[in-house]
């Protein structure tokens, strides 16, 4: 509910420093979801160069992949996707009414597992020849 005056420190969404696990999970899931849709649109746009012929496709992909920045962004994408998947699975369980008591622990687990997978994947993602 919006305030008719400034309520000082108590903002509309409370204080982020005081968020609990479930709220963070919600924020992160939202954020990662939006990044993923955004990526889906750009991804299809990039791939659509295929319609101009195989050369255009090859050069675009390889041009992009040749950039270190893109490689790092891909790692980011992986992180985002992995978290969204893991937390998504967590949410599916919650929807089935399973493991509600450990909802905070499963959230932390999602974070940790995401971290591990991302770190383990970095070499693979950054490997390959750069232009």
């Amino acid at each position: 509910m919006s305030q008719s005056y400034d309520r000082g420190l108590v903002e509309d969404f409370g204080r982020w420093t005081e968020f609990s696990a479930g709220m963070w999970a919600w924020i992160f899931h939202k954020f990662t979801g939006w990044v993923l849709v955004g990526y889906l649109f750009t991804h299809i746009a990039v791939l659509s160069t295929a319609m101009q012929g195989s050369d255009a496709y090859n050069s675009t992909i390889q041009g992009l992949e040749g950039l270190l920045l893109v490689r790092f962004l891909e790692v980011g994408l992986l992180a985002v996707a992995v978290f969204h998947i893991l937390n998504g699975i967590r949410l599916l369980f919650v929807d089935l009414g399973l493991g509600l008591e450990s909802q905070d622990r499963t959230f932390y687990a999602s974070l940790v597992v995401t971290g591990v997978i991302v770190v383990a994947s970095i070499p693979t993602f950054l490997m390959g020849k750069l232009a």
Partner: protein
Amino acid sequence: MSERYSSFEPKGTRWLLQRLTAAFLVIVLAFHFMQLHFVNHAADVTFAGTSARMSQPGYFAAMVGFGLTATFHGVNGVYNGLVNQGLDGTGKRVVKYGLIVAGLLLSAQILRLAFVMAGGSIS
């Protein structure tokens, strides 16, 4: 009360579909990542490779399904997210149709692209 029954779409359907698509996406997205980053390195992707894969009916179906499901899941997710934040009235209607249009365009593009990738031609 009657307005509750006037809709063909019970309110829970989209919620349910969001979960079902999510469950499907877990599988195909993981598969997709494995394919294009671990099995085949992203930097090595070429049109030839892509179209070789896309020519296999199973892979083709999986990828098209992946694309369309992701589109629904993503677009519906965005819409839900906004409604949850209290988006209402005109804004809500604009966003709804905007998202439907965007989703349909993206779906069409995915289908066309998949067709091209599988070696077809569209002109």
